[in-house]
């Protein structure tokens, strides 16, 4: 089909409360760094980064017409969003190839979701 570049979100879903031992943690950072570099070299990388502990989150929502702040995260689950990449790819298979590298590097499941197409102009 058409070969326009699409953007995909690669989100990392990890458990914050089962920390890796320090040397494995360092190895993980190194591995993720390598994937980042490869994404940059291939012109795929748009944006990405790791997030701090979910308890650092604040949720903002409108209640009775006014924005109200509460302690986060938005949903209390064992797995939380730990970080993400936004990449450019020709199609889903290409995005999935990057997700394979990403999940190995960051030692956590990675969800791949396409961004909505921007309106043609």
């Amino acid at each position, binding site marked *: 089909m058409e070969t326009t570049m699409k953007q995909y979100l690669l989100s990392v879903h990890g458990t914050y409360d089962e920390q890796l031992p320090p040397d494995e943690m360092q190895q993980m950072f190194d591995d993720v760094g390598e994937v980042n570099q490869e994404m940059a070299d291939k012109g795929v990388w748009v944006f990405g980064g790791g997030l701090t502990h979910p308890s650092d989150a604040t949720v903002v929502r409108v209640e009775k017409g006014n924005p109200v702040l509460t302690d986060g995260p938005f949903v209390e689950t064992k797995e939380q969003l730990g970080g993400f990449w936004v990449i450019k790819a020709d199609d*889903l298979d290409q995005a999935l190839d990057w997700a394979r590298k990403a999940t190995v590097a960051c030692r956590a499941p990675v969800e791949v979701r396409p961004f909505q197409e921007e309106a043609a102009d």
Partner: protein
Amino acid sequence: MTDPDGVARVYRQEYGRCVATLVRVLGDIDLAEEAVQEAFAVAIERWPAAGLPPNPGAWIVTTARNKAIDRLRREAAREDKHAQAALLHQPDEPREVGPVRDDQLRLIFTCCHPSLAPAAQVALTLRLLGGLETPEIARAFLVPEATMAQRIVRAKRKIKDAGIPYRIPAEAQLPDRLPPVLAVLYLVFNEGYAASTGAELVRADLCAEAVRLARELVGLMPDEPEVAGLLALLLLTESRRPARTAPDGTIVLLPDQDRTLWNRELVTEGQAIVRACLRRNRPGPYQIQAAIAAVHSDAPTAADTDWAQILALYDQLTAVAPTAVVALNRAVAVAELHGPAAGLTEVDRLELPAYHLFHSTRADLLARLGRRDEAAAEYERALELASNEAELAFLAGRLSSVR
């Protein structure tokens, strides 16, 4: 259904091929389906009087493409950006084009992409490659029509939105990509083979469709032994259909079947494929299951069955596909070879509490050991778990025989 003009036959043979080629030409599944349906509508009007064209598939593809281009031109004139973009890919002068075999393979891999749920893969494959209507697919899988329609719409949307490519996977990707394709065809076949009431005719069609698609796939990927193994497995299983139900509709199990009713043509074809697979010596789960079916087909009576060979094949299958269901079937072979007590020891190692065949197998072995009360309890448990009417009737019969 009578088909004096051959349109229905052409539809069955060519629909999937034509849609596959139109998806490539037009870059859009919905557009391709609509165009092919429009072309067949023209065919139904013209062919009865004019006769079949020399190459009906090429006629359909050419007509469908011209219809689609006409429509895109009309829409482009109304400043539809999507239509204008699609037209950019079209050469100006429509020449005759035919279905391209590789397109069908592309479409199979798109329909069976691992990012789609298995139920959606099955529905899309039957709809786009088999040309089955949504209500037919819904009836065959016993789900409401609206549910099936939504499943298909969502799957098509995902293909478009997520950018699932229309491409034959590279050799290196086949280990990931081929198993879901084979699983879909096997699932379609089993859904049709799991017998039963009401929708029986539709369901026999599913078997035929799975065999047809497996044949196509063998033609498209002749170097993949598991594809051949799947076809052999389907043919050998299908060969037993005439012996599988009694005149009153109840199930007849393999040991009790009248083997003279087996379809010898299918047996011969299936066994020849199994032999070719053995020579190739690149075994996989489908080839081994086909080999097991072939050993059964070799035995003129149940008593002649070469259980030692079957057990050896189950050992091989356990090595490549160590599932509890395989272990259960292996236990049946152990019971035949070494007696029901040995079989029961194997069965009791398994944890399949929610699987009705686990309980009915256990019940059968207990009955053969004369432990009738325990056997009755197991048949009761199997009855609670089974859902297919023919199976329920069979289990009820067994239960009364041990009481």
